[in-house]
């Protein structure tokens, strides 16, 4: 069977096929998830080489556990759980265990206060600015681990709050707050906190 034969199959069926020995199913699965997963890893570690190493380890675990995968579990949830654990392991190895985010210590930016954010340039020009992109990446990396993780899972990988809660093993409300705090920090970093 070729890749086109598997186009309509879900991630779960592809993984099942791969577990049964069909390598074409893995190829398609890899193509679907390689970029978001790579960036998810890349945004959390200091450099690309480490990201690539962890990225390869993540897929190695997928390959090694292909026959233990059950269709009842969502493939992406399973994949990003593996990825998250690998990143945490990395931080543990280097002695920088991600600390739990203390919401109260975060930037106290309320929903209403965002309306007072101002930009020195017109917002549409910010998007076209490479400098702004680099600044955003830096801001994301500087986020607290759990906020960064929640932000990436939501905006990079497209998970909803419930899936992120499942992947991270936290409550859905906690995930919502972490995502909110992460966004506020990014807004502050990009647009400043100056009021009009």
């Amino acid at each position, binding site marked *: 069977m070729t890749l086109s034969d598997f186009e309509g199959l879900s991630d779960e069926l592809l993984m099942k096929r791969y577990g049964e020995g069909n390598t074409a199913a893995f190829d398609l699965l890899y193509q679907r998830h390689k970029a978001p997963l*790579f960036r998810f890893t890349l945004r959390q570690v200091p450099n690309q080489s480490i990201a*690539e190493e962890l990225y390869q380890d993540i897929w190695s675990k997928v390959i090694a556990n*292909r026959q233990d995968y059950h269709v009842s579990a969502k493939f992406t949830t399973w994949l990003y759980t593996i990825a998250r654990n690998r990143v945490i392991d990395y931080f543990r190895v280097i002695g920088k265990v991600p600390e739990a985010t203390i919401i109260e210590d975060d930037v106290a930016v309320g929903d209403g206060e965002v309306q007072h954010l*101002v930009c020195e340039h017109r917002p549409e020009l910010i998007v076209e600015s490479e400098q702004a*992109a680099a600044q955003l990446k830096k801001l994301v990396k500087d986020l607290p681990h759990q906020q960064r993780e929640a932000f990436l899972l939501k*905006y990079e990988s497209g998970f909803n709050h419930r899936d992120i809660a499942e992947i991270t093993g936290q409550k859905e409300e906690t995930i919502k707050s972490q995502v909110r705090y992460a966004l506020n920090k990014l807004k502050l970093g990009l647009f400043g906190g100056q009021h009009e």
Partner: protein
Amino acid sequence: MSNKHPVSSEQAETLIETLYDQASQEEPGDDLDKLIMQQAHAAVSDNSKSSAANTSATTTTKRILKWQRFGSIAATFVMVFTIGLLYQHNQSKLRPESPMVIQESSQPAELQKTRSEAPAGDLILEVQELSEEEPAFYADEVSGVATESALPMRKEVAPAPAPVKRKAKPAMNGAAAQAVSPAEESAVKQTTELEAAETSITQDSFAEEKVLIERKSARKKEAAKPAQLGNTQPRSLAPAAAPMLMQESISDFSADSDYSTPEEWISAIEDALANNDKEKAQQLWSGYRESFPDHQPSEALLRVFADDL
């Protein structure tokens, strides 16, 4: 008036999302992609090989078991065959040797010598008679269990020479019979008849001589009797005894005569005729005719004894 542009929270969130999508374009390198996919394929291939190896091992094990089974059957067959062969070998040792060999070895030296000197035909007949008993014995050996000890024994038996026709054999093969000419046949016949006549004459002469000796001894006894009794008168011969005496004298003359050839007989007859001894001539003529019935005498003698002819 400043250049500051106020941004709402929703607008800022949308801007961040858009900016992030545009800024976040990193992907793993192609080498890393290939490496991971090769790893994934290799894992499946190894798994297949492993399972194939397991399957192969299972198949090999089955084959080994199968061959072991076959091997045990073959070994059993070979063992039984070997035992049978040894048994038959021992039996052949216990079995009396070939009758021919026994006869050859058990006979005394004289007999063997006589056998060797005997005409080939006799020996051949004996060999042939023995050979008629051989087939069963040989067939038993030829059936695959012939032993090495049995084979040389058979070598001792000389190969039967070409059969020699016996002298007394009356029947001849057609070609050979046709090859004998009529002249040869008649010559053989005459020879056979002569031999038979000679045999009969010899036998008759022997019998007659025996009778004459007995009669002479009887006469001597009778002649001695009157002397012993004092009877001086000569004994007169009875008339009935005359023919016997005459015949006796002829036979006596004939038996005592040394005439071995017809010419001698004829010469003696002519002498007797010259002396007018017709009686002696007559006796000699009878003896001559008996001795040489086929001899042709002279015309003169034939006329003298024409009455006898």
